[in-house]
């Protein structure tokens, strides 16, 4: 770049100054780093949680009703530290059920992601489609699924399919709404930049709208993933067969037989599954967009 060097010398920029010093200061990286206080918070709430649990179990509940909420140490010793006792009691049957539900939740979530994002892309390109489908999506979100169970049972064969449908119905809305919102969030001037280059709508979608939507898509994914676990547990309640049943069905059995420690252990593990899924998608979001998007902080 000899010609450039020649002309640089003619403008009143000090050529001896290195480029980095010539340029305006780089904006500082203001993202939070992991600190001790990040751990103290969850620890405090955990202690509070256990404290309230003991309080309810040992103080508020009269001893003849204590089976409704056994204290934590009994849940640990009888729910978690018994591997197997009879056909249904113990950690092993609970874990088997959990795995069964986790599979349903994951498969359902994958279906939800594909269907939901495809729907959102279609809605973003055709306004009439957005207007036509939006009210029904909102309706699905607020529809009481348990009221639909007889209908689902009547028109769909196989408990697996029935459970998957429940997962999709419960978890699809956040994916669609967040993806759609993200796809429509690209700036007007960014769109014009693509228009000026005569970009096709496919190029516009893949190189502008989809990347711009990623932070929103991950927000939707995280919510939908949590809901997929709920959907799987709810589906278990209503659609079950012999053999290994889902965690929801297992919880229902424990509830009806008043097996307190097993019931609480199963509930805790079901919640833990939801938490793991939530954390996983938080981590994934950070990996995917954390470098350029600032608000992907909460995991």
């Amino acid at each position: 770049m000899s010609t450039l060097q020649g002309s640089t010398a003619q403008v009143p920029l000090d050529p001896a100054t290195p480029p980095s010093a010539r340029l305006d200061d780089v904006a500082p990286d203001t993202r939070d780093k992991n600190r001790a206080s990040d751990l103290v918070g969850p620890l405090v709430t955990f202690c509070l949680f256990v404290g309230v649990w003991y309080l309810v179990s040992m103080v508020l509940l009269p001893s003849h009703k204590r089976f409704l909420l056994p204290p934590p140490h009994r849940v640990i010793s009888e729910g978690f530290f018994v591997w197997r006792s009879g056909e249904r009691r113990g950690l092993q049957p609970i874990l088997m059920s959990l795995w069964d539900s986790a599979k349903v939740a994951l498969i359902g979530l994958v279906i939800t992601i594909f269907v939901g994002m495809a729907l959102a892309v279609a809605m973003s390109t055709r306004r009439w489609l957005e207007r036509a489908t939006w009210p029904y999506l909102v309706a699905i979100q607020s529809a009481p699924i348990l009221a639909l169970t007889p209908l689902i049972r009547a028109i769909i064969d196989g408990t697996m399919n029935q459970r998957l449908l429940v997962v999709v119905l419960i978890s699809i809305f956040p994916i669609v709404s967040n993806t759609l919102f993200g796809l429509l969030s690209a700036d007007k001037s960014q769109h014009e930049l693509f228009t000026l280059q005569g970009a096709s709508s496919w190029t516009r979608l893949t190189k502008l709208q989809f990347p711009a939507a990623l932070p929103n898509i991950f927000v939707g994914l995280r919510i939908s993933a949590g809901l997929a676990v709920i959907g799987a547990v709810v589906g278990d309640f209503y659609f079950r067969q012999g053999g290994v049943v889902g965690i929801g069905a297992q919880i229902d059995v424990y509830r009806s037989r008043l097996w307190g420690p097993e019931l609480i252990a199963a509930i805790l593990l079901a919640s833990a599954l939801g938490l793991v899924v939530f954390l996983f998608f938080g981590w994934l979001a950070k990996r995917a967009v954390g470098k350029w998007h600032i608000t992907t902080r909460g995991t």
Partner: protein
Amino acid sequence: MSDAPMTQNNAAVLSFDHVSMTFPDGTRALEDVSFSIRPGEFVTVVGPSGCGKSTLLRIASNLEKSTGGHCDVDRDSIGFVFQDATLMPWRTVRRNVELIAELHKMDKSQRATACAEAIELVGLNGFEDKYPRQLSGGMKMRASLARSLMMKPKVFLFDEPFGALDEITRERLNDELLRLFQHEGFAGLFITHSITEAVYMSTKVLVMSSRPGRITDVFEVPFSYPRTHDLRYEPAFAELCGQVSHALRGAHQ
């Protein structure tokens, strides 16, 4: 006395011929605007806000169609620099600079070479792997300039590119842009509302009135290139700025 760096006898690369623009709501943004720009000319349009300056660029780049008259330009050879840097936040500086070339399917190795060259030209070396949010406003604008430079456009349209920057950064970028102008020899059409910037940069300053947007005055800028910072404090410079300012006041009424 006006001696721009490139030859001026070339044919015009951008010309407005009695261009008018009336928006559907009845606003007359432009009325009977005619002028042309040759390679090596840097024409700046100053005018009150909302007078239709930006509309000129939008018509030239075919983002909007004029309702009257004719605008002649080779649309495949336009560089457009927006008011904001319009960088893609998910792309690094390098990938942002490559974007337009990528959209034009320039092949990879050629793209990498052109990209390195463009980044060098705007002085962003060492920042190739930074994301836009790690850059200051001035650096984002440099990246935006580099992105347009990739295609070596013959006509460069600038829509108040430095309007949001502080004075010092702005003056620095003015110098850099002038250097690029001399180096690349494109034809420039620059929109601003800063009179100093207009006079400092241009071979010619057009003053526009508002509603309807019309060219009310034309000033040839006699100072030779390269121009240096101190030019801003010379009496002749101040006098010309005064004349432009006076014309602008007239246009405001």
